[in-house]
Each structure stands twice: as C-alpha cells, then as structure tokens.
C-alpha cells in the first residue's frame, strides 16, 4: 500500500484483508452499495458490508419500522432483502468497477443456512470477506438468538469457517452481560476478526396510542446515542482476543472513528451516519489526515490500541 500524496498511511490490514483506509460501511446502512453509486465515490471507502443476506428473499417487518430518538435511530427492519442468489447474480457484478472491499453479511434461520449462504458467496469472485450476522434483534429466529448464547455463537462461526476460505468476521451483539465471552467463543471457532457491535435492543412508546412506535414492538438502537457503549464493548472484546476488532456504533466523524481505534480497533464501520450524510466518508478521511498531521504521525495504525487507560501499563509505541 502506498501512502497518499501527503505521505500519510491510512491503509490497514484486518484478518488478512488489506483495506486502503479503515472505513467500512456497516451492514444494513448502505444497502448493497450500488444505491450510493451516483451520490458518492464508492472507491473512497475501505470496504462495504452488505445488507444481511439469507438464502431466499425476505419481506422484513411490518411498518412503521423506524423511529428517531435522542441522538439515535430505533429500527426494526427485519432483514428485508433480495436473497444471496439475486445478490450474487445481479448486484455483485455492479460493484466490480469500484476499488473497495466487498464484505457480505450472511444470515440464517439455522446454522446450516449460514453455511449455505457462505458457500454461495465463497464460490464467486469479488467477495473479500464474510461478516456473520448473529446479532440482529429484529427477527424471531436466528439473529440475536445465536449471538446471545456462546455455544450457539461457536456453532455458527465454526460452520461458516468450514464453508469458506474467505476471512470470517462475526458481528457480535451488545445485548449480553459480558461480550468478552462471546469474543473468545468466536475466536475459538475460527473467526479471523470481530465486528463490535450491532444495535442495542430498545423500546420506544407512543404515549398517545400507548403502543410501541415500531410495528415489531422492540427495535435496535443505533447512532451517536450508543457510541460510548460501543467503544466500551469493542475495547473489552479487543482485550479478550488476539484477532482484530472492527469498531462500529455511532461513528460520524474522524474523532468518533479514532475513539474506536485508540480503544484497540483495527478498522471501523460507519452506520447510521450513512442515512444522515452521504458525504461522511470524505469528511472522516480528511479529519483522520488532519489528526495524524496534528499529532506528528504518519500511519493510522500507530493509534490502534494507544489508549492510556487508568491502571494499565503504558501502551507500546505511544507518542507521549
């Protein structure tokens, strides 16, 4: 990887995946990527994580599906999608012209379905890695049910591991008491990296009708409201395992991305901010460059894990 014109290195390596910068679009917030093709330059992104894909197309949840909450977005979309075969046939070729890593988010109602979806994407060119969705709170089977039990987490990750030679990246649920248990289960099952975290289970009530604001009832909370929780959980996961962690939760600026990286994340995903501002990637990249210059650094990797946490030994390579 060559540095930019300014001599700054933004490239990172995660799970054997070389990304030209640490920014990926988070699953469920960027469609299949092609929706944004006319609005921003997809080649700006280090990578794109697709909307979750099952074997078959899904209708998703009834409406209303989204509610705006303080600094957040509560959603119960229910993994509406075209299915993995339509994705591979119709969408994936349209992503080929862009210089960005395509990570496919795989879903399943059963362990076998996760493996089958994975086998399908493993067999086609243009896929850089597989992210395993074991943390969606808005489906009645699968999803968080797998991510809320360490043995099920192990089983799903092991099955996907067996189904592909691509890097395997489970996306962990924050709706657990101790995320490090799940991080270790995923690592033991052969995961190459972890995405931390998915949305937090929430409930918003319409006081006039005394009904939930979402038709599904509960939903997943995202956006700036969850960022401190996400940073904490990504940090806990990163301390628990040797594999790299990709931080996600409420990132909308360079400083937000840096919080996760300093806390130990090798890369980050931008989620809800995609809905708010399609210009977010260009802005974050310029803010990361400005940060490196301001701190006399040349390589973004120098900040990874540089957190001086009270009581910890001083981190290696930190410029004091």
């Amino acid at each position, binding site marked *: 990887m060559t540095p930019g014109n300014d001599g700054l290195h933004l490239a990172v390596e995660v799970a054997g995946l070389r990304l030209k910068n640490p920014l990926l679009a988070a699953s469920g*917030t*960027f*469609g299949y990527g092609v*929706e*944004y093709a*006319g*609005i*921003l330059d997809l080649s700006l992104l280090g990578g794109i994580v697709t*909307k979750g894909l099952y074997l078959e197309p*899904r*209708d*998703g*949840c*009834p*409406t*209303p*599906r*989204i*509610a*705006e909450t*303080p*600094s*957040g*977005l509560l*959603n119960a*979309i*229910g*993994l*509406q999608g075209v299915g993995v075969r339509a994705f591979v046939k119709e969408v994936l070729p349209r992503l080929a012209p862009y210089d960005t890593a395509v990570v496919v988010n795989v879903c399943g109602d059963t362990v076998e379905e996760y493996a089958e979806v994975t086998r399908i994407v493993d067999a086609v060119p243009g896929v850089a890695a597989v992210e395993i969705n074991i943390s969606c709170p*808005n*489906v*009645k089977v699968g999803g968080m049910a797998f991510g809320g039990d360490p043995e099920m987490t192990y089983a799903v990750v092991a099955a996907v591991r067996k189904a592909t030679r691509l890097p395997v990246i489970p996306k962990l649920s924050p709706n657990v008491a101790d995320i490090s248990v799940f991080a270790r289960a995923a690592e033991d099952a052969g995961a190459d990296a972890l995405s931390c975290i998915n949305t937090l289970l929430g409930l918003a009530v319409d006081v006039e009708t005394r009904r939930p604001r979402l038709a*599904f009832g509960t939903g997943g909370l995202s*956006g*700036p409201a969850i960022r401190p929780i996400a940073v904490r959980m990504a940090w806990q996961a990163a301390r628990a395992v040797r594999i790299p962690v990709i931080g996600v939760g409420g990132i*909308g600026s360079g400083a937000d991305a840096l919080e996760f990286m300093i806390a130990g994340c090798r890369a980050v995903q931008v989620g*809800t*901010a*995609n*809905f*708010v*501002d*399609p*210009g977010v990637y260009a802005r974050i990249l310029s803010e990361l460059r400005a940060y490196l210059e301001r701190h006399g650094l040349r390589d973004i990797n120098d900040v990874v894990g540089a957190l001086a946490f009270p009581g910890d030994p001083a981190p290696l390579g930190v410029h004091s």
Partner: protein
Amino acid sequence: MPANRDAPLVARVPLDGPYVLLTFRHPEVAAEARAGQYVMIKAGTSADLPLRRPFSVMAVSAEHETFTIFLKAVGAGSRALADLRPGEPAQCLGPLGRPFTAPPEKSEALMVAGGYGIAPFALFCDELLRRGRTARVFYGGRTAADLQVREAFAERGVALVAATEDGSLGHRGRVTEPLEAYLDAGALRPTLFACGPDAMLHAVARLAARRGLPAEVSLDPWMGCGIGTCLGCVVPIQRADEPRPRYRCACTEGPVFDAVTVVWTGDDASLARRRALEETTA
C-alpha cells in the same frame, strides 16, 4: 442525478402560523427536479435529531439555481429548518424519488391537496402550463389557516377550489366533495393526482377506482435516508401482474405511486392483501 451539498438559504417568507416558504440555492435540484420529487434536508449538524427530513419541491428557478419548499414547522426538526436565516446553509440531498406522470394528451389534470400536500402541485402546474396543458386544484384543510400559498396558483392562472372542514373558507366539508361535484358535472377525461394525509389519499384512491379514473398518490411515510438503504419508509404495493403485495421503498420507488397499486391501511378490501404480506414477514 441527486447531489448532496450544503445549500444556503436565499429567501425565507414566513406565512400564517407554523407555515413558511424557504428557498435554497442548489443548482442540481433547480435544474433537474420534477414535480413530486423531494429533497432530504437538515439544518445544522446536531446529533440530537440525526435524520434529514423529506420536503417536496414546490418551485424551481433555473436562472437563480434555487428551489423552494413549503414547510409546516410541527416538530423540532422542521422548526430548526424554519428558523434558518438567509445565508445559513442546510444539508440538502436531491432531487430524489419518482415524480408525477404527466397526464395523457387532452386529459385534464385534477390535483387534490391536503394541507402542506399542496407543495408539489405548484411545480406540477408549471410543468403542465409550459406544455399548454390545463390543471385544476382542489385544496382542503381543517380551517382557512391551513390553506396557505393559494395565491401561488392564482398567479399561475390555475383554478383552485378550496374546502375546509369548519367552513371558514370555500366548501364546508371534505375536499373530495367538490372534486366529486366537478367530476359529476362532466370533467374532460380527468386524471387525478393527490398529495396530503393518508385518509385523503385513500379517499381519492377509492373515488378513482369507483369511477375508473387514473390516479397517482404521493405518499409521505417516515423516511430515514431517501436513497433506498434504510428500508424504513416501505409501503405495501401490489402491481397488476403480481400475486401478492411487496414492501417497496417510498423514497426511491415513490413517493408517487399509481393509486390502484397501494395496499391501504384500514381498508377491508386491502386487509387480505396486507395479511398475505404480513404472514411472510419476520
């Protein structure tokens, strides 16, 4: 192609009550927007209310590179926009969505608006008048104060029929009543276009179905992104060649839909179709 940019406010015209007209400089919207399309707009970068809001384009000036929206400040998000001062920018992504379809030759366009649903019809009248076509507007609301910007249509020489539920302006009752009277009087091959509250859109759709008239409705569900990726704004739509409804994004496949394809809430005839969809949902 929609363009995302900070668009400065160039004019602000306060109207009665919570209503205001805002004009932004945005060359792409000014050049490309068609009636029924919208712009996702947010004032400032506060994280407190993260999302942008969709607003119909009411008028454009290619010469000044501007577009105008008609805003009713009802919540904190729209109030922040309404409070913008000239020179201050708003984040604007547009133009977005599927516009109204021009009616066939020799068909009279009948536009039915409820409250701030009037906005796209000013631009629609501009488009039709430019081509020598005629239009007529039926404008309903609870009370006279809800029927703002009527003079925009007078300036364009477009006939406007007002209806208020309290009788404070025009016909006393629902806007569909003078519409029906006009149709009974023998309108010339009318095509209906509606924008406003769901109940009004549904009434227009029923009326059109009963009379065998073509109709388009502009739906206004909560939208997260405007690009078709959050899947928050989906509506159940069933086209003639489809065995059952499918959720479609109002932001990209709408907001304008053929009225007969919409599966309405609270409609017995739609209930079975809606159930067929919900049985398959998560």
